């Protein structure tokens, strides 16, 4: 029988983000949480909590998931680095096809996804079940659900060969990039880390948003890795995306297309970003951003 398993790693937010996809797919579904607790109010038939103290490395986790995913026709997680790491390995273990970065669906065996840095939208047909999916939530808003799902504990035996030696988490107090309502991003002209933090970080904080960056900014040490937005970085879908000192490469735009309103500040009137921006202002970001903050008193 067709049935979906949502896989979440460490808590409720992921389950909420995946709920809209599960509703659109229209199959009965369970939600599994590896570490932490899955939400009980998203309409799942069963909530399964593995209760691990931490999320294990991919080799151990995929092996542990193998028996838990038996019997499901569809297995889906959020489209992020962790899901890609673990779920693609799981696909290799159980010999399942996989569709990365799902943005839409026509049926339980036909999905759409961007490819070639978002220049093309591919329709992918699933020829054999089970199938593993990573989902970008922006295309799947969730309807409210009433009632709560029964919760069960499940055992996930995870032992593998890779050992985690250390973890460095950054990000601080700012909202998560992929969930923020406002994102302010900066590019190469920010020059150095201190300036980036003051100008872009400061503006993001003033708007209650997250800070993002281009690859050029990350590569030159101006911004941290996990702030990179684009084809090979994070995908964002805020209400408001402000791009300051960003040229608008295909690879960067691939990560921001789902934003409701894109604002570009660039001193070059011919910068490609102006072709995508809903609102564009030609000017020097070092003058424009303080002026906006002054006008808004933030």
């Amino acid at each position, binding site marked *: 029988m067709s049935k979906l398993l949502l896989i979440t790693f460490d808590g409720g937010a992921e389950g909420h983000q995946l709920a809209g996809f599960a509703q659109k797919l229209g199959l009965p579904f369970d939600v599994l949480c590896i570490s932490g607790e899955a939400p009980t109010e998203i309409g799942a038939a069963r909530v399964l909590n593995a209760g691990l103290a931490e999320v294990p490395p991919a080799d151990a986790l995929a092996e542990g998931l193998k028996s838990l995913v038996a019997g499901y026709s569809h297995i889906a997680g959020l489209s*992020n680095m962790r899901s890609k790491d673990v779920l693609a390995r799981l696909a290799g273990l159980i010999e399942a096809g*996989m569709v990365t970065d799902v943005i839409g669906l026509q049926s339980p065996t036909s999905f759409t996804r961007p490819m070639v840095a978002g220049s093309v939208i591919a329709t992918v047909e699933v020829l054999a079940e089970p199938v593993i999916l990573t989902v970008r939530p922006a295309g799947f808003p969730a309807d409210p659900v009433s009632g709560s799902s029964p919760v069960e504990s499940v055992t996930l035996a995870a032992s593998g060969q890779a050992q985690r030696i250390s973890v460095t988490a950054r990000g601080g107090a700012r909202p998560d990039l992929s969930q923020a309502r406002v994102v302010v991003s900066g590019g190469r002209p920010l020059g150095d880390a201190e300036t980036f933090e003051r100008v872009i970080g400061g503006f993001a904080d003033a708007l209650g948003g997250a800070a993002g960056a281009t690859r050029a900014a990350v590569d030159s040490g101006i911004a941290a890795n996990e702030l990179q937005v684009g084809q090979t970085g994070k995908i964002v879908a805020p209400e408001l995306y402000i791009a300051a000192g960003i040229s608008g490469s295909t690879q960067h735009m691939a990560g921001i297309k789902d934003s409701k309103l894109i604002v570009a500040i660039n001193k070059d009137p011919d910068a490609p970003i102006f072709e995508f921006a809903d609102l564009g202002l030609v000017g020097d970001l070092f003058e424009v951003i303080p002026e906006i903050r002054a006008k808004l008193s933030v």
Partner: protein
Amino acid sequence: MKILVPLKRVIDPYAKVKPLGDGSGLDLSGIKFDINPFDEIAVEEAVRMKEKDGSHEIIVVSIGTSDSEEQLRKALAIGADRAILIETEHIYDSLGIAHELEAVVRAESPDLVLMGKQATDDDNNQAGQMLAARLGWPQATFASKVEAAGTRLQVTRETDSGEEVLELPLPSLVTADLRLNEPRYIALPGIIKARSKPLEKRPASVMSSPKTRTVRYDAPPARAAGRKVSSVDELVAALQEKGAL
């Protein structure tokens, strides 16, 4: 140590790509091809490991038509020792690529498979993890630093929220992220030397039936045309009017 680097011939990542009008494929007229940028980073990393410790052998492998010879030669010019072309016109999904690469690994018995995290044409980000699973080897994806420590590897990998360090016994599989290194400029002597390095062709041995198939290629929905504003006042007014703040 024997290092195997799988690499894919892909559309030039800086080319502007459009679907064909009837949605049956991509319009490749006038398009150049190159090594997948993440695979080039993987080749570069293997060559740097060899430059530090000459005992390494680097084998590059690509699955595709004879067109991929060009990309294999480029990898040899960067510093790989020999190349294998699995010559085939079969259509693969990433799982099928993993099956084909698994056969190469079983034949060559490398200690380390170093490859790109994703192909920039299909943007799948799957084959490395699938191959590691097939082999039962540990994996470190999204690597930004690789250090050999005796018979183990320490790999710094990028995560959604920062980074982590994994220690892996060999044999193992690592996929390269952009920050691992910046590939060298290939100088003429390297190109000349590459011509005489061995490039062996082998037939595909698995050719599994794909479990997913791309059936249509469409242009992304166009965004409604935006407008330029001429002052900060006008920008702030427009943002307030749209309720964006």
